[in-house]
């Protein structure tokens, strides 16, 4: 490219940097710039001048409400993003179909490694009778009685739940979590009980606190999680 040819590009550079070329011209210039080291060098040289323009304006103090409003929006989004991340994490643990509405009964779950419990007693049913597992899990008394294909989950020493909350139970079977179709409300002595119709293949039983009426997706960590195999 001759010097005279290049001059026309060079002349456009200022308008290009100021965003003052027409859209078609700007696209043409961008394509030229990609292959023209001379224009690239000129652009790099002039860039500080362009960047100085916004610095040249007289400073005004932004109103405090701008910062407050901005940070409220940002913190709100950050909290929602963190919440979504928690749900996403749970969904990786539970198949999506399990988190779909379960006739208004939602359930909860989460298997938690490291839930500390100790076995109080166990009757393995080797005599053909019911199998009973009793444990203390994080201060909650858990008695799981299995008979035939079903079972009964009996809980004691439960904390009282607020009036707008209920307890919901889940079972984990072959790595998949299923709802137990019952909501639990502790009585005044902290007892609650529910029946699990099909205990075949269940590895873990869990309970979580949920809003009254149940949840469609887990909203909290389990207050109790116990292996039953």
């Amino acid at each position: 490219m001759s010097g005279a040819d290049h001059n026309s590009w060079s002349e456009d550079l200022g308008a290009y940097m100021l965003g003052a070329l027409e859209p078609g011209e700007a696209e043409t210039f961008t394509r030229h710039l990609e292959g023209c080291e001379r224009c690239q060098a000129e652009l790099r040289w002039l860039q500080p001048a362009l960047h100085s323009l916004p610095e040249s304006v007289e400073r005004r103090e932004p109103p405090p409400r701008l910062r407050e409003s901005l940070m409220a929006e940002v913190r709100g989004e950050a909290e929602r993003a963190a919440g979504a991340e928690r749900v996403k994490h749970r969904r990786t643990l539970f198949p999506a179909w399990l988190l779909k509405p379960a006739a208004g009964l939602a359930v909860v779950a989460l298997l938690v490694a490291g839930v500390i419990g100790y076995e109080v007693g166990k009757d393995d049913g080797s005599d053909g009778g019911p199998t009973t597992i009793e444990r203390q899990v994080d201060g909650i008394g858990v008695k799981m009685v299995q008979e035939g294909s079903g079972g009964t989950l009996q809980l004691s020493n439960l904390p009282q739940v607020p009036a707008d909350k209920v307890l919901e139970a889940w079972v984990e079977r072959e790595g998949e979590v299923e709802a137990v179709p019952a909501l639990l409300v502790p009585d005044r002595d902290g007892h609650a009980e529910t029946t699990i119709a099909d205990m075949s293949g269940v590895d873990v039983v869990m309970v979580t606190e949920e809003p009254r009426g149940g949840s469609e997706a887990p909203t909290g960590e389990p207050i109790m999680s116990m292996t039953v195999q």
Partner: protein
Amino acid sequence: MIGAMAVKRQRAERLADEELMPLVGGKDPEAFEVLYDRHGGVAYSLAYRIVGDRTAAEEVTQEAFISVWRSGARFDAARGSVRSWLLSIVRNRAIDFLRSKAGKAPKLDFDDDSALEQRPARERTEEEALRRETAAELRGALGKLPGEQSKVIELAYFGGFSHSEIARILGLPMGTVKGRMRLGLEKIRGELAEGLA
């Protein structure tokens, strides 16, 4: 909880802008807050300079920072500083705002700024004070340009007009307008280079 936020904020304050951006991209409100505290003033000032109205300037600044919050990961350090990137976003938003309000004329001189310079302003940091000094020098550099050059640069940068629109406004050939833009930027660059020498 408040303690944890304060600690995060203190950590963020020790980071350079370029180091803050990955945190902002990771949705760290404290990192974002530091970014706003460093650049919110100039961003708002730029927005006000372009749109000429406090409420609109707030709106533009808020939109620009929210855009940064949502797209922080897109910042490319190879293409310039965080501040320049952020201010280019503010400028583009403000120009879009102007264009959406058809018929709004940009300001063409620094008279208002000179008057405002008399107002006391809170200087948070030495860096900010230095920036204010630099800004004053830059206003000087821009002010030293021949009026014909500063006018086309202002119309383009602060008014969002294309070179052909400016040619029509000023009754000049388009080539003349483009030449003045180029010459004006060169002169500002020369002033900056002298200032650094």
